[in-house]
């Protein structure tokens, strides 16, 4: 394999070095530093005081931590299943024979290119209770205006809807890559055997796209657990803290209230939760495959 006289390892390191340096400084170091400061009371600006496990103990007594965690879980449950189904359905459409295939691929993916702030602001205005477009339509149809973002029962769903629109395109790309990998011969032979569309879908496409679905599910759950921007821009955590998610509380504790240590401790709790869930998912899905 190795060409004589070539130092592959050394050259490899040199080529990877620029990236590695950035990665070490901006990823590995902050990760370690975050863990370090979670054991301190530190306000960024002055030097910190060692706090031991105090930040972690406090978190278990903090109602706001638990309510924010619950709101995050709620968001994961609201978004994950729908985004999976939506992404898969879109992928079916763009990999099929429909004449709209090319157009819809672009239409589905374009929202994902937009920045979070743009998407959040856009949907916040569409959903504004008194002057938003959605309620104008509701009024035209003779309905009562809906408090999309201001009604505590609907606010999280509204954030979910904006998220569907924003990120379903990404899942579509994953799923369509998975579908395109399925060998054409399988479809051809099933056609010769006279299988109809739904038989092909349920007997061939879905079983063979399972590894992609597993990957997609894990990525989606992680992404949903880390939700921040949509909530921050659209509802500001309101009404009365009803949609405050954990990442938002972490952000507020750290950068608005200057409780960096406490903020880092909560971030590490979130990390642990995501880690455990991902490992369980990975193990469960892996077992199924073998």
């Amino acid at each position, binding site marked *: 394999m190795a060409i004589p006289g070539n130092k592959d390892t050394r050259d490899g390191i040199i080529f990877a070095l620029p990236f590695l340096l950035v990665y070490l400084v901006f990823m590995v170091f902050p990760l370690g530093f975050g863990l370090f400061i979670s054991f301190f009371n530190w306000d*960024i600006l002055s030097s910190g005081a060692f706090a031991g496990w105090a930040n972690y103990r406090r978190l278990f007594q903090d109602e706001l931590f638990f309510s924010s965690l619950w709101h995050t879980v709620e968001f994961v449950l609201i978004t994950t299943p729908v985004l999976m189904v939506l992404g898969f359905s879109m992928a079916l459409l763009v990999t099929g024979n429909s004449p709209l295939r090319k157009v819809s691929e672009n239409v589905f993916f374009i929202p994902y290119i937009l920045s979070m702030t743009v998407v959040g602001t856009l949907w916040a205005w569409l959903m504004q209770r008194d*002057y938003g477009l959605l309620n104008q339509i509701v009024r035209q149809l003779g309905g009562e205006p809906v408090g999309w973002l201001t009604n505590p029962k609907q606010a999280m769903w509204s954030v979910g809807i904006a998220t569907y629109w924003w990120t379903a395109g990404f899942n579509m790309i994953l799923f369509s890559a998975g579908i395109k990998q399925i060998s054409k011969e399988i479809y051809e032979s099933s056609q010769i055997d006279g299988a109809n569309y739904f038989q092909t879908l349920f007997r061939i496409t879905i079983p063979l796209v399972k590894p992609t679905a597993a990957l997609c599910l894990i990525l989606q759950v992680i992404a949903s657990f880390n939700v921040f921007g949509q909530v921050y821009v659209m509802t500001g955590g309101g009404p009365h803290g009803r949609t405050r998610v954990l990442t938002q509380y972490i952000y507020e504790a750290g950068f608005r209230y200057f409780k960096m240590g406490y903020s880092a401790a909560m971030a590490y709790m979130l990390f642990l939760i995501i880690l455990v869930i991902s490992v369980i998912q990975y193990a469960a899905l892996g077992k199924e495959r073998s």
Partner: protein
Amino acid sequence: MRTHNRKRAFIAIALIGLMMLSTLWAAGSQEQKKQEGPIEVTFWSLFTGGDGEFFDAMVDEFNRTHTDIVAKTDTVKFDNYYTKLTTALSAKNAPDVVVVHQSNLLGYVPRGVFLSLDDLLAKNNAPLDDFVAAPLEAVKYDGKTYALPLDVHALIMYYNMDLFAEAGITKVPQTYAEVIAAAQAVQAKTGAMGLAVDNTTATYKAYTLTRLFMSMLEQQGTSFLNADNSKANFNNVAGEKALKALVDMVQVHKTTPAGLDYDGAVNAFRLGKAAIHFNGVWATGSFEKQTGLNFKAVGLPPMLGKPAAWSGSHTLAIPVQRTQDPAKLDAALTFILWMTEHGDMWAKAGHIPTRHSVYEKESFTSLPHRKDYADAASFAFAPPATPAWEEVYSTTSDMLEYAVAKNQNVKTALQAMETKINSIIASY
């Protein structure tokens, strides 16, 4: 072969090194430039949208009239100003002058990141007696001055003159009962919204509730926190009266729709669909631009007693630097003083000036509306000087919002708020 390889590796490493160096170089040469010509004062401001253009115009005017100093903003507008400011302050590479809200300033001061200005002010003979007392007092911490106030932005009352006339209201309502009566009269006679007060968080937190609650406490001669800002001070008769006034607006008198958010309230008034609107002075600019809106802006009425109104203040502060250049400090102070002295230009954005001399300028008195609420500065009070304020403020807003939305019993609500606020203060 080996030497060839070594040469290649050397070139690769040298190239990487060069790329890194060049960024350092660029930073270094910028440092050097400052030595020649006029002194450069860098600043950050947090003004976007409406306010921003007036602030930029002031900076342009400053630069036009000063040959020895150049004021420069070295960044674009921020998405998140305070996050950037905090990191810059902690790295000690913040600009020479920064704009900070008075309520945020006091969160920073105990951390020693802002320069105490007293010596500098004395050295430059700053005309401190030209400043309005209340806002100048509000930037002091432990007796030292840490910033100079650029403006006061108090909570005021806007009312729609056409809707008032249509409903036959001739006197500007003063007491809570009068405000409610006027709002109800307008609702009955015109079908417009009586009292546009945001009470639900959407894109903005329902801070108006906290601002009103604090104002109503002060109107009854008491404060939100106790004298040394160590405990909540609203779980009492005055607090009950103030909270009841807020809840009743929505739940009993029905003058304010439930679920109204900030954008909804502002736009209702702007489009002439609401009779009375409580908001900060900053809304004046956008209301003025609205054709067909015939409105007046007056100081917050003394609804529950004597006149008192919540107010914020934009202040100009000087961050502590690694090496403090005295010439630059003087230039920075010159810039700050000039900005406050030209509060008439800033008043175009709706803000109330902080210098007595500005009130006499023709360019200020000729502005519409401003003088109608300028006296609000005299009964405006600042938020309490505690590092816990940011968390107390947003938590209170959430809890008041909850109390109003759920028509909570005022005693239960205040009890819960008191417990929560006390535990927050204790955690600092």
